[in-house]
């Protein structure tokens, strides 16, 4: 079978047998794939650095029905500074977890991969005013790309654009105070600044959003809302996000 050469980001790794690993890689050309990387837990393996989690590498592999077999890999970017800050690492891990949960094997999404690489680049380089904004923007753009773009212009029930004060998970978007009684399920309170931020997450590119200043308390509320919404849409919750929330009070 012909070898496949593609660039990809390692989004999950599991130890396999004595010295191997099973990698989940989100690739540009083949989408989300699983590959066995043989001998990569050995000290002298040439594939060590390029098969670690967060590694963006060029992979050459033999495709298989379930697992590919890595033949060669060259590291392009390791996003190394993420290791120096546990909060950054927790947030970046959450983004990888989202990619893992949101896509099926062999499902392709080169645009979202590109977006994720940009986010990781800004995050690891400390180039954003607030990393939580990067996470929120990625959450919003991902869920929209998956086809679950939330309604953020008018009340999802009466279509009015006045007195918007809530986000309804079950109604896929914002609702006004008057319609509160007509909806069941989980509601998030929104102030005008939070609504504007959610709308900007949809409209503005990451490059612009990274310079946005916002209080961390407000950004966390938005991240919580979007994580809940994504979980509702794709039917899976993120273990890494739960970790991030417990990490805010680590040894407590």
């Amino acid at each position, binding site marked *: 079978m012909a070898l496949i050469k593609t660039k990809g980001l390692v989004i*999950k790794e599991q130890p396999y*047998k*004595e010295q191997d690993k099973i990698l989940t890689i989100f690739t540009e050309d083949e989408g989300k794939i699983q590959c066995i990387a043989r001998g990569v837990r050995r*000290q*002298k393996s*040439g594939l*060590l*650095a*390029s098969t*670690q*989690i*967060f590694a963006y590498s060029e992979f050459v592999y033999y495709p298989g029905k379930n697992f590919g077999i890595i033949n060669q890999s060259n*590291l392009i970017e*390791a996003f*190394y500074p*993420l*290791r*120096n*800050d*546990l909060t950054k*690492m*927790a947030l970046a*891990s*959450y983004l*990888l*977890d989202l990619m893992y949960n949101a896509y099926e094997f062999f499902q392709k999404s080169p645009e979202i991969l590109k977006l994720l690489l940009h986010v990781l680049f800004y995050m690891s380089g400390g180039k954003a005013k607030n990393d939580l904004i990067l996470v929120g923007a990625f959450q919003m753009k991902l869920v929209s790309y998956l086809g679950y773009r939330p309604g953020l212009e008018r009340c999802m029930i009466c279509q009015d654009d006045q007195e918007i004060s809530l986000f309804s998970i079950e109604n896929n978007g914002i609702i006004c105070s008057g319609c509160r009684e007509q909806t069941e399920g989980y509601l998030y309170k929104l102030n005008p600044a939070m609504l504007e931020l959610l709308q900007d997450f949809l409209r503005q590119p990451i490059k612009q959003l990274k310079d946005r200043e916002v209080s961390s308390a407000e950004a966390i509320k938005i991240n919580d809302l979007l994580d809940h919404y994504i979980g509702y849409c794709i039917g899976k919750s993120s*273990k*890494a996000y*739960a*970790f*991030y929330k*417990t*990490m805010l009070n*680590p*040894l407590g």
Partner: protein
Amino acid sequence: MGYYPKTLERLVLELGKLPGIGEKSAQRLAFHIINLSDEEISSLSEALISAKAKIVLCQKCFTITDKEICDICENPKRDQETICVVQNSRDIFAIEKTREYNGLYHVLHGAISPLDGIGPQDIKARELLLRIGESDIKEVIMATNATVEGEATAMYLGNLISPLGVKVTRLAKGIPIGADLEYTDEITLIKAFEGRNEI
């Protein structure tokens, strides 16, 4: 495997559950075991049962031991002011083989991993901080793995320990002995340059 007696089949099955043992190796081991003398068999089974029953965690450093306090922690000749932090007990055996380090150890029993949901509360981090607080430790050497999880754990613990006035160091990274420079990855080369020594 219907061609083996049931008792032998069970032995092969149990041995095959061990790490790194496939069916063929399990069969070889099983045939070796049934050919052992009664004394050898008794000794082997006794060793297995007593290892499982008597191995506990050292109350100070949390490595595996068959006593309340392990030999290293109990040894007054060891440097009582330095702690080397490792992820598991096997790392201690690797470091001890070098005969280069004479301090104490602390075994974390894992590393922080957001994707696996392993947080600081799931490893022996709190115990390390308590130990440093209670004794006169001058240096803590972070010898966790050079993986993403190991690095993040070292950095996280370092940030908690440094304010206590204790020196925190990290094992150096670089080119393995016997390796060709041209096959070394960029990250390792960068770290090797950063940690270069005067000769």
